[in-house]
Every structure is written in structure tokens, then in C-alpha cells.
């Protein structure tokens, strides 16, 4: 800790404050800034050069003037308290309580940037999270310790789906905690999330870190880091399975871009800085499990693709880091299907490890693979039907079209307050698949067909 205060301001611009005459300030350390309007603000050192320190002011520089600022460096990067005291609490993007409660006191503190996890110490994710949402549990199973984003477009019910998952998810009776990081969400959305997660909060299974659309942009960069730091401790020390929902990553990335632009950094694609990939990875890679420790951190980022463009840097870089993606489709939403899951565009890369015998149910992987393959075929049939008319389709192709409808009706369509078990979900999947002629079911073993399909004569 450095008790000295520095007041010799060289310049102020945007959210940047440059002070002169500084000794002993380290790169990336945090600072407290007293302003003569009576406010106390917080900064992070972006650069040191001789006796200059460049600070990013979290709450912004409004009202600051040379001569009216005192800066004190803390000697360490930005830290938050850790521990179970977080359960049931809500704070802002600096870790300050928003729920009217007392300051959050932890057993220890940790720097919010965290440290990289030694890859050798990682335990490969193996067990499923039951989200209670059939389409996801059946076809893109979320695995504890995975990072699986929701790709959506503005106007779709991604927030509803994310909160449904946050409200319902469980880990076979093991302790389960949800950490919800809101970044740049409108107040109405934040209120919606709060109400929807009421029960989880009351049960002491929820932590909320909220940065609303009109909160300081700089704090948006800290919001997910606070959430993840709290989550890592609850998982790897306290032993809970923690699901971190981060919404909306698009707002987060815009904040990164805004800060980069203020620093006049050389932009890469679409004016986002070249390090956006590494920046996102420093968040997403904090999921996982650790050898010999209980608990897991599962990350579900939610992002809206500008103009529905999946090649836009935010979904693109996210897809390059995460282990699959859950994609929502406008067209399904327009038809009134909730949740509007684009099954073919979605994939959980870890599903094969976290579903199936000993994980969910013996038949899961085979029937899911069959269901997806059949849906791909159904889509081809639908395209053909658009060209030549349904009447000209072969019987088989018409069977596939019927299957696609059955899948929507018996499996995918679900109420936002409906939480289904794996058994229920998989039975529904069989029901949909059973619409197809038996000879088409080449991906399921004979034994499974015999035990799960109604007798051949019934169809």
C-alpha cells in the first residue's frame, strides 16, 4: 500500500486521467481518486512511463479538473472480497451492494482478473447440467465446466431463455449456484431478471452483478470479472456447481471497443481492437473443473448478433473460444415457437462426454444423433418441397416433414415456467422420432429401438 497522494494532473480526456510526479505505481494496479466535488472514484493504471501514470477512471472523469483531484494507488490490481457472504446478494460493476444491504465482507479478497488455470490441472468436464429445457437437454446438453453461449438477435426471447435456465438448472442434487452478470441491460430487462430469479435469490443460490445500460461503460469491463472471481471461489473452494450467465456480451464488447478507441488503439475488424479474442478468452476460459476439487464453473454468455450476422466479430470470436453454441432462430420465433432453438445450427461440443450411459440415460446419445440427422434430412425435404410442392415429394420425404413438426410439438415447444426431467425430455424425443418409418432409424441400435419404440404394427 502506497500512502502517498498525487494531485499533479497532466491531462484529462474521455475516461483517462494522467497524473505526474508519481513514484512507485505499478501497471494494472487500482487507485482511489478523491475529487473536490466530494466524490470518490476508482481507477486502473493503464500505463506507467517515468513519473507519469495513465489511469482509466471507472466512474468517468465528469467534473474533474486539474488541481481538484487526489490519487492514491492501492498497490494491487482491483480486488473483491470472496466467500459465501455473496449468496443472495446483488452488487454493481464495482462490487458495491445494490440491494441496500451491508458491504459484502469476505474471508479473503482476490484480484478480479484471476490467474490462468494450469491446463494440466484441468479435469475434463463429464457430468450434465439439467436445465429443464427439453431442446437443450436433449440435443445440446450443457456439461458442468463447459462454456456454451446463446447466439441470438435483438427481439428474440434470449433473456427469457437464459433466465429460465438460470432459474431451473440443477446438478443432480449437488449444491448449485447461479451468478448472473448483467452488462449494459436496460432497466426493464434487469427487473425482469430479478423477478424471474426471485426464488433462487431467496434460497441463497444467486449472486447478481448488475451493470445497466446507463451505468459507466468502464464498469462493464469489470462486471463479468467480478462475477467470475466470485464464482471461482464458490466453485473450487466452497464446492458448488456454479452457472455464470453473462448477458449481453455484445454490450460488453462494445465497451471494450469504446475504451480502445479512447486510447487511440489501432483497430482490427469492424473497429474492435485486435485483442478482443484474448480479452473474451480471459473471461470464457475461466470455466471448468479442477482435478481433485469439487465444484465447477459453467459459463453461459448471451449475445445478440448485430443484424443476425454470425460472422460479426462478437459471435465469431465467441464461437472460436466456446465449446459449441446454442442458436436461436428468428423464423421459429415468428411462428410462435418458444424456445426458438435452431437445432441444426446449435451444437454442444462436450455433449458426448456429459450425456449417455451413466450420465443421463443409455439411449441419449444415439437417439439425439438420430434426431439431428433426421432434422437435417427434413430440412432438405422442406427445401425441395418449396421448389416442387409437397405433393411431388416421396413418401419418405413427407415422413420427414411430419417428423419435423412432431419434434417441435412434442419436444421443443415448452412454457417458460416448465422444468422437465431428463426422462421426460428423452421420452418426448422418442415420441417425435417414432413418426419416422423404422427403416430410416439407422443410427439407433436394434436393442434400443426394440425397447423404446411402440411395436411396428402400431404405425
Amino acid at each position, binding site marked *: 500500500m502506497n500512502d502517498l497522494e498525487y494531485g499533479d494532473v497532466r491531462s484529462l480526456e474521455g475516461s483517462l486521467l494522467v497524473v505526474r510526479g508519481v*513514484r*512507485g*505505481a*505499478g*501497471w*494494472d*494496479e487500482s487507485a482511489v481518486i478523491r475529487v473536490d466535488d466530494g466524490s470518490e472514484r476508482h481507477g486502473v493504471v*493503464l*500505463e*506507467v*512511463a*517515468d513519473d507519469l501514470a495513465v489511469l482509466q477512471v471507472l466512474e468517468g472523469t465528469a467534473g474533474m479538473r486539474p488541481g481538484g483531484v487526489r490519487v492514491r494507488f492501492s498497490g*494491487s*490490481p482491483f480486488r473483491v472480497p470472496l466467500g459465501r457472504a455473496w449468496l443472495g446478494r446483488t452488487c454493481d460493476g464495482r462490487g458495491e451492494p445494490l440491494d441496500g444491504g451491508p458491504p459484502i465482507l469476505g474471508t479473503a479478497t482476490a484480484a478480479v*482478473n484471476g*490467474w*490462468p*488455470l*494450469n*491446463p*494440466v*490441472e*484441468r*479435469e*475434463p*468436464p463429464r457430468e450434465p447440467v439439467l436445465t429443464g429445457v427439453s431442446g437443450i437437454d436433449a440435443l445440446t446438453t450443457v456439461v458442468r*465446466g463447459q462454456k456454451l453461449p446463446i447466439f441470438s438477435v435483438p427481439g428474440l426471447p434470449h433473456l427469457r431463455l437464459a433466465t429460465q435456465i438460470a432459474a431451473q438448472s440443477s446438478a443432480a442434487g449437488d449444491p448449485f449456484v447461479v451468478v448472473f452478470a448483467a452488462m449494459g441491460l436496460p432497466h426493464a430487462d434487469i427487473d425482469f431478471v430479478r423477478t424471474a430469479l426471485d426464488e433462487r435469490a431467496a434460497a441463497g443460490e444467486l449472486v447478481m452483478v448488475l451493470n445497466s445500460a446507463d451505468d459507466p461503460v468502464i464498469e462493464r469491463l469489470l462486471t463479468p470479472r467480478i462475477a467470475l472471481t466470485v464464482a471461482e471461489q464458490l466453485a473450487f473452494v466452497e464446492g458448488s456447481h456454479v452457472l455464470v450467465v453473462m448477458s449481453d456480451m455484445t454490450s460488453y464488447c462494445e465497451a471494450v471497443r469504446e475504451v480502445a478507441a479512447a486510447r487511440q488503439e*489501432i483497430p*482490427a*475488424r469492424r473497429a474492435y481492437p*485486435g*485483442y478482443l*479474442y*484474448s480479452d473474451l*478468452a*480471459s473471461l470464457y*476460459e*475461466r470455466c*471448468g473443473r479442477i482435478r481433485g476439487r469439487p465444484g465447477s464453473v459453467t459459463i453461459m454468455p448471451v449475445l445478440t448478433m448485430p443484424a443476425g450476422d454470425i*460472422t*460479426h*466479430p462478437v459471435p*465469431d*470470436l465467441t*464461437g*472460436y*473460444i466456446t*465449446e*459449441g*453454441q446454442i442458436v436461436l432462430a428468428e423464423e421459429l420465433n415468428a411462428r410462435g415457437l418458444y424456445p426458438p432453438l435452431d437445432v*441444426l*445450427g446449435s*451444437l454442444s*461440443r*462436450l455433449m*458426448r462426454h456429459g450425456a449417455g450411459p451413466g450420465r443421463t440415460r443409455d439411449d441419449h446419445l444415439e437417439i439425439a444423433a438420430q434426431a439431428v*440427422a433426421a432434422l*437435417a434430412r427434413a430440412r432438405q425435404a422442406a427445401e425441395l418441397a418449396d*421448389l416442387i410442392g409437397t405433393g411431388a415429394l416421396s413418401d419418405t420425404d413427407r415422413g420427414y416433414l411430419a417428423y419435423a413438426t412432431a419434434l417441435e410439438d412434442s419436444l421443443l415447444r415448452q412454457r417458460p415456467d416448465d422444468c422437465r426431467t431428463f426422462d421426460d425430455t428423452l421420452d418426448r424425443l422418442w415420441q417425435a422420432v417414432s413418426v419416422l418409418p423404422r427403416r430410416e432409424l*439407422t443410427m439407433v441400435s436394434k436393442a434400443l429401438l426394440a425397447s423404446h419404440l411402440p411395436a411396428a404394427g402400431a404405425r
Partner: protein
Amino acid sequence: MDGVTRQGRVHRVDGPLVEAHDLPEASMYEVVELGEQRIPAEVVAIDGTKLTLQAFEYTGGLMAGDVVRRTGRPLSARLGPGLLGRVFDGLLRPLSSAPTWLSPQTLASGEQQSTRWHFVPNAAPGEELRPGALLGVVADTGAIEHRVLVPPGVSGELRYLAEAGKVPEGAAVARIGPTEIGLFEQWPVRRPRPFAFREETFAPLHTGQRVLDLLFPIGAGSSTAVPGGFGTGKTVLLQQLAKWCDADVIVYVGCGERGNEMADVLGDLAELTDPRTGGRMIDRTVILANTSNMPMMAREASVFTAITVAEYFRDMGYHVVVVADSTSRWAEALREFASRTGALPAEEGYPADLSSSLAAFYERAGRVRTEGGRVAAVTVVGAVSPPGGDLTEPVTTATERFVRGVWSLDRDLAYSRHYPAVSWSASYSHDAEAVAAWQSGHGNPGWAARRARAMTVLAEAARLSELAEIVGTRTLPGRERMTILGGRLLRDAVLAQSALSPVDATCSGERGAALLQLVLDVVDRCMTLVDRGVAATEVEQFDFGALVRAREEAPDLAVCRTAITTALEALA
């Protein structure tokens, strides 16, 4: 060395970019240590008294005025026994013995270890030895013999050679002239290790993946890029290669990718048995892990460290395959640093020397005669992750200029769950002709013709399918409809190969060729059938299930052939 003149001061810190003063003797690419944490950094520019340094670790807490120490040596890898079967970071510091969370101090301490190695001499004192000559082997390092050689640049009379027995890590095992030779040597990672000459002769690399071995084969010492958007299967393909290709040693470098994937490779390889040595697959593999959340600049060093390790094993006479996932993340590290130094950016912010950096990497591939007279090779396969799947972006286009082959992964194929999603229209291999010649010299004269026929059917089928989408399949002549069918059969029965399959994850050259021949013969037979007047629709609706599943279910393809031929004949 004079300790006093070897210290300078930090002047500026901007993330991994650090500037220092007062180190007049420091030279370009020398490693220095920053602050009390002794963060390793490399000198990347000298301007008067100002040094620009690229730090390989997180520089948090580093201050202006902090001490900078010289090491007097360039960024080097410590080469010796104990590399195989273990995991290291981009600077070749062992991760296997590092703690759970990687902060700068914890990794530096990883270097000390006190293993003793069992050395067995294999030379006679008094001999005149040249670089690359065999001194002995280290016996306790697994299935691959670890050969201790006279290092590059050293020659003369062998004055001393240790007797068989345990040797402590730091001890000398030989002396040539005045030079002591230990089990370990430091080699600057940015400098290629010397060899005698590039070999004119050719040998193929068998990958075990049918689409590669049959259509886009490569040779030992070649280089190939694997571009593809996210989720198209780059990592799985590279891992398949690491598991099944017939090289002696694999250097797997995870460069700016996922931690879970590194844990996966490690776990998978530990469980697999190498059919050729009987040892575990992991024991022929060196893993370098610099995941995306680890310090970015070590990512930049990691690919050079990897290729240096590969050259080290090459010099012992082995065929080494370097698998790099992903070279784009490495290029991004170059870009990131360049932009901090304020270098004038070229395309998409990448530094203007991007392509020479890529060349410096890929050009170290090759099949050579080593200084010790062994024929050995370093083959490089690098994943490329183009933003937005756009293959015209700078890293992809620059890479294509230096590699001999491209295995391009196609989003549509991956989307329809066809794996490996290697595009047969966008991929190529400059080695295909050499492989054809090699095959016909090794009893497979039909190899090239089969490949040509398969490529033709695939290309024709693609063209006709597009046409059919406009005019409808039914209006096409029977033979053309059979070509479309043939394309589908080739794709589903031959080229598809699931990495998860217990029987088909890898495929021998003979079986691959037999399967391709079988499918081509079936296609020919279908043509004959329509020529003889059988309705095309009838052939199209024939149940080819047994053929499509033959790769998984038919251990004996001859049986499958008889069954299908008979059933098809019944249509006539």
C-alpha cells in the same frame, strides 16, 4: 560477467510492452528479466539508449524504475531427455509440475528438477567426432530411444565419455576437445538447427484419415495449413493426426486455444497404445500448452519453441510432426504487440512483416539429411482460424504462400455433420504427384488413377447437383443422375470418418484404397445398370445402407462387395 553493468531500469510499462534504459550492451532478441518478479522479456528493438522489450508474462505491478537484468542469451529452449509424455508452456517450462493457478513467480520455479537419467555410451574415446555423431542413448525415456548427439558446432576428438549408469541432470557425459557435453543443451528458438542438406527422395506421411490419404496426401517434411471457421473440426482433425499418423514423434502446440482441449489430448493420448512401439501414444508426444488465457507473448514464442523441439528430435533421426493449433492466435499476438509499439499496420492491423514471420515458421519444415547423416523430417500442420470464416483474410492468404498443401474445412459440411469436413473442392496438395509415384513404386500402380476418378466424380457430382437444383433431378439423363448418386456415396461411404468411432477413427492405407475401389466399382455398376435400361429412380432408391456403413461394420469388404453386387444385379 559484470553484474553491475548488466542492470538497467524500466522506463515505461504498457501491458506486455516494456521500455528500458541503461542497458548499453544488450543485443537484439536477448532475454532480460524485469523487476523483482524476474519476468522474462525479449529485446525486440533498440533505439539509442532505449530498449523495447516484449514481456512473456503478466506485467502487473511492474513500475517505472524497476530493475532490468540481462541474461546474455537469446530466448532459448532447454532440450534434453524428459520432454516426451509431458506438458510445457510456450517457453518450455514444465506445466506438469507447476501449481494449479499460473502466476509469473510459480512458473519460473518450475525449471529446477533433479531427475537422474540412465546413460548408455555408444562411442569410443579417441574417436574424431563431428556434429550429430552418436555419443550414447538415455535408456529410461519410454519407447522412443533418446539419442545423445554431438551438438551443432562442436567437433574434435572424444576425450571423455561417461560410463553406463545414472547421470545427474547437470553433469557432463562427454568431452570433445575442450567442450563439455551434457544431456541438456540450450538452443535459441528463433534459429533453425543446422542440417546437412534437404533430401531429394520422398516418403509419404500416412495420416489415417481417408480423405487426406486418398485425396490430399502429404509427404514427410511437408507443410500444410488447415483453415476453417469455428467448429468446422480443425482441432479434432489435428488431434486425429497426433493420435494416428505414422510419424515417430509428435509435437502438439496448443497456441491460444482452449484449456479443456489440452486436458483432453493429454487424457486421450495416455489411454491409447502406439501400435508400432507398444508404448503409450503420449510417450511419443511433447505437448506445449499456451492456452488463450495464458500470457499472449508466450504464445508468440511457443510455435518457435515447438519447431525447435521438433528439430532436436529430427537430428536424432526421427520423423517429427508439429501440429499447431492455431497459428492465427500466434499471428494475433504479433499484431497485438506491433500495435502497442506503434508500428505502421498493414492489412487488418497485422504488422507488415506478418508473412516473413509465417515463412520463418513454415520454412523450418523439411525432409533432410541431418549433420549426423540420418534421413529425418519435420512436418508442419498448422490450423488457421480465419475471422468470420473469410479465407481472404491476411493470415490465411499469407500462409497459403508458404505451405505445400491446404486442407480447407467447409462450414456447410460441418453444419450437416459431415466429418472430417475437408472440402474436396477447396483443398489441395502439391505432394499428390510425389505420393502417386511413391505408391506405384511400392506396389500400388492404381493409386493415382483411383484418386483421379474419385476427384472427377466428386467434382462432376457437385456441378450436376447445382444444375439439378434448378432444373430438377428428374430431367437429367440417367448417367448424370448416377454421377450425383456416386458423389453422395463417395462422400458418405468413403470420406466420412468419425473421430469417435471405435473401429474407424483411423484407417490403414490398404483398407482405405479397398473401400474407395469398392465404391467406385459400385458407381460403375450403377452406370451400367442405367445403360441397360434400368430406371435411374430405381437405382437411386436402392438401399445402399450396407455400403455406407461398411467402414464401420464390414471388417471384410469382399463380403460386402458380393452382397451389394448381387443385390444390384437383381435390379436388372
